[in-house]
């Protein structure tokens, strides 16, 4: 089946004081219809920049997509005109952001902000749009939608604001929803509400979701497939069960081992020594090599490729060179 969204060998560059750096370096991923794809990694691994590249929302003056391709149902997003992009955003692909506090405009009423998207994409009258906006608010579980449409963002709590963001994002029934750390700023009980809501919408409408998060617990609960990123590259990709049961890449293993568990007793956490390399000081070989406990000589000198280590399971590591299966 042709994937809905296909990112191929994406390279996104930023101008920094240290010169031009590749923040995303050769990322390929696919989003199939109706699935929830998790993109995990720690800060600075390029997960958000990948999603901003897909939406073409990168700050133009300091960054650009240097090479690679992004296609939505076979159409090249990188070649789209600004007006074509505007038609795509919100209608075919929507995005919700981490900060529900700052992603709504403080000087416009909630209703106006939902109606803006509806009226732009659906060409319906103001009255109809308002009815539809109230309906959307009801759908995302806001208790008194009739009065909330006329309120301003500061009158709502964080959880309600994120619900409003979801209402805006889902208003035009997009095929793809990109959720960039949608619950990071929220408390756990509110996080549970929002995640349930996203899952429910996904099941009802068959929306594909690209869920960007650093929380492996959320990944385990929500996702079908997972892409693990480290320092701008994909290091492992597989279905969610294999990732947690049989992680391959030393980074994924280390990440899972360093989580404090809610069940069982732990006296000491396993941690990954050192820290993520700076963007302008990337190692010449494997980017994880300086922190890796299984490092070999070749890891320092040459870059490993993504290998097929099992069916639907790829991993960027020399340890599995012998085990590679032909694709």
């Amino acid at each position, binding site marked *: 089946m042709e994937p809905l969204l296909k990112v191929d060998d994406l390279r996104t560059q930023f101008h920094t004081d240290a010169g031009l750096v590749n923040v995303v370096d050769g990322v390929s991923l696919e989003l199939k219809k109706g699935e929830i794809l998790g993109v995990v990694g720690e*800060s600075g691994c390029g997960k958000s920049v990948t999603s901003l590249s897909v939406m073409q929302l990168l700050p133009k003056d300091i960054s650009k997509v240097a090479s690679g391709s992004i296609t939505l149902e076979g159409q090249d997003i990188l070649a789209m005109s600004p007006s074509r992009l505007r038609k795509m955003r919100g209608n075919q692909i929507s995005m919700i952001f981490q900060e529900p506090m700052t992603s709504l405009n403080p000087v416009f009423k909630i209703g106006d902000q939902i109606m803006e998207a509806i009226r732009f994409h659906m060409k319906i009258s103001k009255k109809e749009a308002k009815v539809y906006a109230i309906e959307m608010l009801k759908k995302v579980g806001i208790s008194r939608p009739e009065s909330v449409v006329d309120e301003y963002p500061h009158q709502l709590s964080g959880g309600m604001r994120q619900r409003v963001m979801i209402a805006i994002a889902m208003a035009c029934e997009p095929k793809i929803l990109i959720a960039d750390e949608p619950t990071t700023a929220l408390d756990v009980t509110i996080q*549970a509400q929002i995640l349930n809501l996203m899952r429910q919408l996904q099941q009802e409408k068959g929306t594909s979701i690209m869920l960007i998060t650093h929380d492996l617990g959320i990944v385990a609960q929500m996702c079908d497939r997972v892409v693990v990123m480290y320092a701008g590259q994909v290091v492992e990709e597989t279905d969610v069960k294999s990732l947690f049961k049989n992680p391959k890449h030393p980074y994924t293993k*280390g990440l899972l081992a360093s989580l404090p568990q809610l069940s069982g007793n732990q006296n000491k956490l396993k941690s990954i020594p050192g*820290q993520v390399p700076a963007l302008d000081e990337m190692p010449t070989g494997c980017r994880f090599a300086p922190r890796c406990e299984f490092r070999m000589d070749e890891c320092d000198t040459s870059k490993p490729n993504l290998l097929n280590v099992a069916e639907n399971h790829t991993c960027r590591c020399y340890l599995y060179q012998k085990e590679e299966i032909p694709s």
Partner: protein
Amino acid sequence: MSTLLKVNNLIKHFPVTKGFFQKQVGAVKSVDGISFEIEEGETLGIVGESGCGKSTTGRALLRILEPTEGEVLFDGVDIAKLPKKELRAFRTNMQMIFQDPYASLNPRWTVQQVLEEPLITHGNLTKTEVKQRVTELMELVGLSPQQASRYPHEFSGGQRQRIGIARALALNPKFIVCDEPVSALDVSIQAQVLNLMKDLQQKFSLTYLFISHDLSVVKFISDRVGVMYLGKLVELSPTKSIFAEPLHPYTKALMSAVPIPDPEIKREQIVLSGDVPSALHPPAGCAFHTRCPVAMDICKTLVPKWSEVSGGRKVACHLYEQNHTKEEQGSCH
């Protein structure tokens, strides 16, 4: 073990004023009458959602914020009533590690200066002794002493938090309030810092009050855990028993809401409806009754008592008040 810190009915209200004469029209009841004890050498974890008053509690204990009412007995001395001058000297016993390693270090000071300051203010060490102590502290937290002349921006988040820890340790305190010390860090780095804190605790027999919103982190580091909701403690139990069998409905909901990093585990989730009410007008009776799945009529009017249920487990809930037989506990599931 002896009790190091005993807190009696601690209250911190922030007045809300209005108009030209700053007339007080209300109060945000951030911490509304909590009592607990911390044993020497133990870690008491405090969990709760944003706005529940956990950070305010930590700050009021050290008198970074002046408590409105209540007693804080540290080794028998009431810190809450200590005159300013004595307090200053007394503070060498208690220190704090802050949440944001980016904001809690002066960007214009080198690490040397950051670590020197408490030593110069409180100790009477010679210049060489101070230098020696700084070297010692840096090695203790796993930093290279050669980095002492660097500025905070040259370090990563995890390293900055290590500097914050070294600063807290400088005067050999007995008690450290750790306010979300690993919340701003990535998991792999978080594990490093948590291990370090545990090692240091053993080495210097430190007592921690560990404030966090992350239940799994609290479980890892604490001996006992207190759960706060809207300015009050709702449950306080040894770590093992609270995670094995949470008593208060809020604790139950909180625990079931944490996503578990294992896709094979499918469990019943208690999803609370609505948001935390405002601390300006907390609900009458039990503050949790507006969201509680098992609320009864009595909860709406009567504040539940803070009482011991069994073996060192305290809870404030009407379900456990009259007699806490097993059958009754079962009925709230």
